[in-house]
Structures are given as C-alpha cells and as structure tokens.
C-alpha cells in the first residue's frame, strides 16, 4: 500500500542539473537587463540633446522608446522572479521529497515495530502529506496568475518628465561660469617644436611572452 502512495524520489543529479540550467538562464537575463538599461540611458541622453535643439517632438519620441525599454526591463525582472520562484520551488520540492522519504522511513520503522498499523499514525501522516500538497498547489496557482497588461502611456506624465529635463538643463547652464574673452595669441618662434619624452612601454602580451620564453628556457 505504501509503495503505491509514495513514488520513487527524483535522482539528485536531475535536480542539480535543473538548478544549474536555471542559474544559466538567470545569468543570461541579467546580461540582457544590463544591455537594455544602457539603451534606456542612451535614449535619455538623446532626449536631452533634442531638447537643447528645441526639437520637442523628437525628444518625446526618445522618451517613448525609453519607456519601451523600461517595460522590457520590468518584464525581464518578472522573468527573473519566476526563475527564482522555480528554483525555490525546486529546492522546496527537494526538501519535501526528502521529508516524505523520512516520513516513509519513520512509518516503515513503526510498522516494523508494531504488528498492527495504528490508524491514528496513518491519519497523521496523511494529514501532513495533504498539507504539503496544498502548499505546492498554492505556489503553482500563484505562478500561473497572468501578469497584468501593460499600462497605456500617459501623455501628461511624459510632458511633465520633459519639463523636468528642461529644468535640469537650464539649471546646469546657469551654473556655468561666464565665458572670458579669447586670450591674446602667443608668438612661437618658427621651427620650434616641443620635445616629447619617448616612452613606449611593452604591452602586457609582450610581458607574457617574455615570461613564457624565460620559463621554457627558449
């Protein structure tokens, strides 16, 4: 009866392999997130440039693209969270499996000690198993909840953000010192050239090569 209720636990290698693969995917997602963050920052810089050039429409377009990148970044964050959840679930499932194994061992030991199975012990074991099963179901339900649809762009918010950028730009200009008149030209005697010290350092690769040759007695 117990053999049918408790299946064979998953081999350790499979769990570890899955965790390694999930870690690899997580790393890939993190790299992509960094790339998108760079692109978003680049769009902000472009928006500033267009603002200086009084091209409001183009600046707003850049901010829209920035929003798109930020949405992608948010989505990647959700993906990472899902992978983390799955890793936690895998580890939890592993712990659960080990617990069930321990319970089975305990149950088998009790069965060996007692000639008749005590119904109260069986009920207790089943209650615990049901509790674990319920927890797993809740986790799966939480994972299967769909992510809400992306919000619409708010034009007013974009306008406000643009005004903030303009304000920052203006403030930056006000802090600049006044430009001075160009200095008088300095007369340099004809044919005179400034002497530069010739310092050519060997590259790291050349150092490596020299060290290798020394070590190999070449």
């Amino acid at each position, binding site marked *: 009866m117990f053999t049918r209720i408790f299946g064979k636990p998953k081999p350790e290698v499979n769990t570890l392999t899955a965790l390694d693969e999930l870690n690899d995917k997580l790393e*890939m997602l993190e790299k992509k997130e960094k790339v998108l963050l760079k692109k978003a920052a680049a769009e902000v810089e472009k928006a500033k440039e267009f603002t200086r050039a009084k091209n409001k429409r183009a600046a707003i377009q850049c901010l829209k693209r920035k929003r798109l990148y930020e949405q992608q970044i948010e989505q990647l964050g959700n993906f990472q969270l899902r992978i983390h959840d799955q890793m936690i679930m895998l580890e939890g499932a592993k712990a659960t499996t080990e617990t069930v194994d321990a319970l089975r061992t305990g149950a088998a030991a009790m069965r060996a000690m007692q000639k008749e199975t005590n119904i109260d012990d069986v009920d207790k074991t089943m209650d615990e198993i049901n509790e674990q099963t319920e927890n797993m179901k809740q986790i799966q339900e939480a994972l299967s909840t769909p992510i809400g649809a992306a919000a619409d762009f708010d034009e007013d918010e974009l306008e406000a953000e643009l005004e903030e950028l303009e304000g920052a730009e203006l403030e930056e200009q006000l802090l600049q010192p006044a430009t001075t008149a160009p200095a008088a030209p300095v007369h340099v005697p004809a044919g005179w050239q400034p002497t530069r010290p010739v310092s050519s350092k060997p590259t790291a690769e050349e150092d490596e090569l020299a060290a290798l040759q020394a070590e190999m007695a070449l």
Partner: protein
Amino acid sequence: MMLHFVQPSKLKTKKMVFEDVYASCDSTTLEHLKELSSKRKAIEDSINECNFVTEAIAKEMSGGLESRFEQDIHKIENYLPFLEILIPYADATSTINQIQISQWNAALKIRWSSALTTSSFFKIKGPKFFQINNLRFELGMTLFLCGGILRERALEVLSTDLVQSATIFRQAAGIYHHLAQEVLPHLEPELPPEKPPEALAAVSSIMSLICLAEAQAVTIRKAEEKGTSSSLLAKLHHGVTLFLEEAIGIFHTVVTQCKDISSRLSEFMYFCKCLHELKGQQYLAESLKACGQIGAAIGVLSSVLNKVKKKIPGEDPWKSIYQKQIQDASEVLRKFVHENDFVWHEKIPSIYELPLPEGTKIVTFIPYSPKRWERQLSFKGLV
C-alpha cells in the same frame, strides 16, 4: 591534444663488421674499428628488438638510465663520435683512394630499412632494406634515428616536465637541421634511384619543422597552465600552424622526387595543423568576445569549424582526439550563438570580413655539433 607519429623512430638495420673490411695498419686502428662495430651492434640489437637482456641489466649497462629511449640515445651518442672519425676518409681526393674506399664500403653492406615508405605500413614480408655504399648514408640514417628517438623521449617526459620535453624536441630539431644542411646534401648526388626518403635532405627539413611545431605545442601547454591571455595563446597556436604549413610545402616537392613516401606523414602534418588552427581560432574568438565583438567571434568559430570538419582522421587515437576538439569548439560556438541571439543581436560578419589569424613562432632549434674523437687512423691501401 598532440597527435602521435611514431614512425621516424622505427628504423631497422643489418649487422656491419668494420674490422673485417677496413684493412688496418696498426693495433690502434684495429681497436678503433672493433669498438665501432661493438657500439653499432648495441644499436642494432636495440632497434631490431633482438635484445635479450632484462630491463634491470639494460639499466645497469647504460649507467642507471631508466627509460628505454634514453638508453637508445645513449648508445647512439656513444657510436657517433667513432663513426665521425671515418667520414673524412669518405672524402678521399685521389682516384686510387676513392676506388679503394668504394670497395670497402661495398663490402660493408650498409643497409637500413625505411619507416616512411608506403610499403613499410603493410609489413607483409618484413621491412625492406636499402643498401647504399656510402658512409654518409650510415651517418645520415643513424642521426635520423637519433632524432626520431629523441622525439619519443620528449613525449615520454611530457606529462612530468614540460621544459625538458620542449628542450628535447628542440634538440631533435637541431639534429634534423644538421642532417638537412651538413650531412645529406653531400650524399644526395650519390644516391641510387631506389632510396629511402630518410636519405633526402628535404625530409630532414620536414622533420626539423615538425619537431619545432611540437616544441611550441609543449610551450603552449605551459602557457595554458600559467593562464596566459587568449590573444597570445591564439598567436602561439597559429605559430604552430606556420611551422606545419612550411613543412607541408616542402612535402609537396619531396613527393615528386620520392613517389613511394608514405602519405601518413602528410596526414599527420595536416591534422596537427587543423587541430592547432581550430584551437588558435577558438582562443581568438574568446579574445574577440572579451572585447565586445561577439559577432566576429561567432564568425571566426563557424568558419574554422566548417574547415576542419571537411576531413576527419580515419582511425583512433587520432580520430577521437580530433573529434573531441571539434566537439569542444562546437560547444563554445553554441554558447556564443545563444548569447548573441538573446542579448547582443550583433551582426555576424561574412568570411571576408573576419580578422585574419596572426601567428608567432617562439621556439628555435638547438644547434647540433657533431663530436669526434681525436685519433689518427692508418689503413692499408690508402696513400
């Protein structure tokens, strides 16, 4: 990842008795000839595998050398100085002396097998022996054998001492270079139409380059242990391919002179070149990726993998070594492609836009200086 080509150390020879042929005038000369014959017999027994002494006795006789290859090298090094003394007599100026020496050399019956001919790989009736009545043939084949055994000795110590291994390869390269430049050019005008490839100067040039390639391969192993940068490792691997390409070029000219030279030698050079090219491009790709050029890295790896997959060695152990390298490089390529698809989306340049490999040769041969006893010999019949 080094392929093994053992043939150059597999020469065999027949017995020679100098004192029965060369007419001595005095006891010193006679003693010298007997010593010469005795030392040569030690080599004969060893390479013909007619040795009946146990390993312990062989070690004792060679003064404590454990390695069979070391023992053989020791015997050859003892024999060569005695043989070198006779070489000047081969350059007799007078016609009368030339006739006399030719008669003696014919009576000596200098015979060696070849390990680099096509027939030597089928061994139906045992090895074929070539007889050339010239002392330089004896000197040339002995030195060729010495170079071959040094190569085997270098491979023997590879796992324990990389510096010593590389040094021995360079010594072997020096011997082959000496053969190609100083010994065999004098012999070639007197070679008969049917001759072993080992008697050609060009073949020794090939072997010298192979030894240098192998010495550099050992050096690369040390570089990899040290954690050398990918860009330098790429140049070193391509340096090995430069040595081998030069050797392959010489081989194409040798084939016209010696039609029965084995293609095994050519295959060895070709597959070694492909392996190092693959490894070099793999390091180049890793270097490019580190510089943020993953598209070029993918292009480089794809290109070299397509190239080396065109031809695969037919037999183990070459085949499994070769396929393992291809598998490793393919795995790296798969990871690069996946990362580019997911993260970078870089364009992969066409084959004409790829960076060209740059090779660096850093090993040179150790020059070989023949040793020769200072001894005056006197022969009857020579004026």
